């Protein structure tokens, strides 16, 4: 179990976090290979459906990342998103998904290092939680 690596879906905004991930790559900063990246035009595009569908598919965790407040390419996308994130996190955790399964971050295009740190932290958090088991247990049609 000790070398188990979680599978994490990452929804990254095109303008900042995706570029940040790119920078981390070209700068050859080491971070865990746990992410499956989905590029979105803006973190404001994140619908709870995307996150819950990822959990339904059995992913061990979800990371959503966008531009820092004030830096949104579309001016206010991430501000609106931030409110949504709070509700998503609250409801998902209330439903019984462990805190840490779904995480959010702001990473700018210049923060390659921060991106790597975020991935490392999220990966470690989810590693501690262990593999997703909620949905695996639920999948039972009579």
């Amino acid at each position, binding site marked *: 179990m000790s070398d188990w690596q979680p599978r994490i879906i990452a929804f990254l905004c095109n303008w900042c976090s995706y570029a940040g991930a790119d920078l981390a790559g070209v700068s050859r900063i080491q971070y865990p290979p746990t992410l499956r990246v989905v590029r979105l035009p803006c973190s404001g595009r994140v619908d709870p459906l995307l996150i819950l569908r990822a959990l339904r598919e059995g992913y061990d965790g979800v990371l959503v990342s966008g531009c820092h407040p004030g830096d949104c390419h579309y001016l206010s996308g991430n501000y609106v998103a931030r409110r*949504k994130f709070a509700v998503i996190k609250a409801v998902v955790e209330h439903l019984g998904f462990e805190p840490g399964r779904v995480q959010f971050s702001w990473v700018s295009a210049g923060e390659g290092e921060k991106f790597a740190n975020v991935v490392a932290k999220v990966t470690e958090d989810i590693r501690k939680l262990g593999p997703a088991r909620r949905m695996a247990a639920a999948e039972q049609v009579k």
Partner: protein
Amino acid sequence: MASLAEKLRDCARGLLAEGKADVVIGHAAGTLPMRSAPCFVRSAGEVEGLIFDHTCGANLAKYLVKDKPRGKKGEAAKPEKVALIAKGCDGRAAVQLVVEGQIARENVIIIGVPCRGVIDPHRLGEAVGGREVLSCRPEGESLFVGGDGFKEKVELREVLSECCLSCRHPVPPVHDVLVEEAVEAPGGADEFAAVEKLAAGSPDERWAFFEREFFKCIRCYACRNACPMCFCGECFIDQNDPQWFGKSTDPGDTMLFHAVRVMHTAGRCVDCGACVRACPVGVDIRALAKRAEKEVRERFGCEAGVSLEEAPALAAFDEDDPQEFIL
């Protein structure tokens, strides 16, 4: 002194007779004890059927957006002027629909009626041990319930919808007419007590609770269809490309259906409890919905349907919204 029903009939009669409203949507006596039926009154002569009491649980604002009349191809239907007999939560839902651009303010007349709480048929059933209720008479804070071989007195608070017990808006905060002065809300209970109790438990305990609740779900979508805020032309759960979740009663799929519906109605839900009362199998949908409401209230200070000026909580933002959870 005229009864509440008489006053609201007078009001409806006046609006119809003067041509201020094309239709009055209200409640009429139902065919079962403690059940009312939504009714659509189009002429002054028909107002006699209108009632308002503890049985009027449907949120009538739903009918402002259900089966929206469609005009001929290319032209909008002529909007009807609708007068809505609205308890607090019906009125709030109507306001929220205006705020969200679903209906025009000038096309709806909100007739406020003071609500003393509505009965939840599931709680009534529980209170009498699942026996069939054949008669029911409210008296003060009690309800005299009769059935096949039994007569019992139950406390009204025991059978009112849970949402009514913490109600803070017995009359619509925004209304055009107020049929009778506001009463004291039956509320008083801590509306988030149940949420906090669950939150105090472990994730595993919460999961077990919700799995058990949603396992009951038969996916008839009565909750969604009774909800005035569920007006999407195509619900995410009905989409097939992409198909977000499976359509079977697999608990994983049903739980996530309810979870997403709660998130989609977050900041818009007026906690009318119509979903809970509509559910034929007694799923405690509010147990999850209240968590979203709590977050919206505490974090953003927003409440749905209390003001025509306030944007929906999740369509607005403040640059200083707290973000302690974001890395």
